[in-house]
């Protein structure tokens, strides 16, 4: 039993790293523009399909796809920002979110029409490679995804805290007008923040593709987890989202041992409801709004 629990803990931590990579972009766009990017999961879906077709076309490792998928997603983020997000920056929050709901429907169902609902996965030389520490088995692709995720999350944190661009992003986040008056090109900063948020998925796609398969509605699965993480972590709170990612993932993988049938995925949501019930001031001591 202890080995089982230990194994579940390790799996949970690894999964938490991947969740955090997917959620940081969401938190970033939220923190800077107060926009809830409902289409975030669909951008991940695009990145995963991009990786899949790259691997099929060049018959290489999924990780190599990052050289195409990362710039591709960054660019896609910037185009979407300029065409759709920028015009609604001053609109009310429901309209902003619904615009991205519309985009997610177009992406998800467009992919369904183009690629059919078949599941697609790629084989990597590393797919079955694993480390064994005592009784605990760690799949190498998961370890790589975890390491990359943590590095990216921490780099983003560093970018926001310590670089000129980060300072500008934070300034624009705390007061758009004041930042503009201080000579910051707020539109450019917003555009870059959105591009970086989506760009993170350009890394998440290639590193998760050897672990998960891709289907057109995979975005819905990840966006639900991401919302739970972002709300639990305190909306817009970077480190909160990181911690919440681990909590959610560990809850899920530990639950898989004890829960009957395929009910374990319900645990992050139950946990979410329990926090709302018993700790209404928020997991990290701050309210959601």
């Amino acid at each position, binding site marked *: 039993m202890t080995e089982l629990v230990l194994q579940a803990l390790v799996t949970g931590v690894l999964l938490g790293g991947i969740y955090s990579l997917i959620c940081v972009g969401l938190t970033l766009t939220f923190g800077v523009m107060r926009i809830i990017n409902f289409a975030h999961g669909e951008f991940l879906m695009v990145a995963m399909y991009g990786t899949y077709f790259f691997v099929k076309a060049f018959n290489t490792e999924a990780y190599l796809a990052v050289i195409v998928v990362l710039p591709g997603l960054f660019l896609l983020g910037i185009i979407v920002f300029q065409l759709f997000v920028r015009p609604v920056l001053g609109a009310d929050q429901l309209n902003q979110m619904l615009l991205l709901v519309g985009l997610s*429907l177009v992406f998800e*169902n467009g992919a369904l029409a183009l690629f059919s609902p078949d599941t697609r996965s790629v084989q990597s030389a590393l797919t079955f490679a694993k480390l064994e520490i005592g009784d605990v088995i760690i799949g190498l692709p998961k370890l790589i995804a975890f390491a990359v995720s943590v590095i990216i999350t921490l780099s983003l944190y560093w970018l926001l805290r310590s670089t000129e661009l980060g300072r500008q992003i934070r300034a624009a986040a705390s007061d758009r007008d004041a930042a503009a008056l201080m000579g910051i090109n707020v539109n450019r900063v917003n555009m870059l923040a959105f591009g970086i948020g989506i760009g993170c998925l350009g890394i998440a796609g290639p590193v998760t593709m050897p672990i998960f398969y891709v289907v057109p509605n995979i975005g819905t699965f990840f966006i639900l987890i991401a919302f739970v993480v972002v709300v639990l972590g305190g909306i817009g709170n970077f480190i909160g989202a990181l911690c919440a990612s681990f909590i959610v993932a560990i809850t899920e993988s530990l639950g898989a041992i004890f829960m009957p049938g395929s009910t374990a995925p319900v645990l992050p949501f139950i946990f979410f409801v329990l926090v709302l019930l018993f700790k209404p001031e928020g997991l990290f001591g701050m309210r959601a709004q």
Partner: protein
Amino acid sequence: MTRSLAFLCGVLGLAVLVCLPLVLTPHQLHVAFQILLFGYLTYCWNILGGFAGQPSFGHALFMAVGAYTSTVLLLNFGVSPWIGMIAGAMLAGLLGLFIGYLSFRYGIRGTYFGLVTVAFTEIARIVALNVPAIGGALGLYIPIQSNSFWQLKFVDKTAYYYVAVVFLLLVLAVTAWLERSPTGHKLVAIRENEDAARALGVDVIRYKLFATALSASMTALGGTLYAHYVTFIDPNSLLNLNMALEITIYSIVGGVGTLFVPLIGAAFLLPLADAVRSALGQSYAGIHLVVYGAVLMAVILYLPEGLFGLIRALRTAREPSNAARGTTAAAVKEVAP
């Protein structure tokens, strides 16, 4: 519009609705039924999302509670769906109260409330998939061999159309009441400025909970009708984010306005989706949602007041004298003080 003219329009509209099945083909009748049912659901959504300003993305959950409660009661105990739908409505109301209480107490409102309702829908989907007693992943079939009003079973789909007309009249009455009653005014006050409403002595949480429970219960009634019309329910097609979003989209595309506005979205989008589907064929599953998404984006970018806003703008443009008078009046008002 004077009172008697409005009454006349209402009677005429009702007469058209009642006579329509005589001239429609079965397929057109199917689309008309969908417009009525989803129009009904849009009004239900509007009680919470429009009046109270708490956009739910989880109304599929309340629909499913209505659909499952009545169906399980019918299949296992032979309980009439008319009673089953009341039971479903009560359950959905309680569930709405629970979700609302959790969220509003936590300070979650507006779009975040929408996210919480999504989480609950997902919980319900996973649970429903794993409970064999309510069909699990296989779902539940409602066999229909003969007509029975008491069992809400009709071989001829026209009967469902008329049930949907009655549902629509019911929700129109509730909406008209909300528009005039102090309760409705308090909900609008909460939507416009929650803190100001509270400062004026409105029990904000109580009224929001009332709106949630009313909206959820009425949605559940629609869920029962849906289940009996399609005769098959399963967790993945019913407890689905897209199902909930569809209801929201009809409401937003129609526009925020008076009594008849929420119908515009469904009356525009459902025939459009049907036309796209028949033009492209069944090989493109989900293509209608691409259309919905694109229309939703276009409406938000170019018609923030929805199609209703467009209709109003066109009407004002066609009556230049009226518009001119309005401008003069505004100018006078501006000069006056």
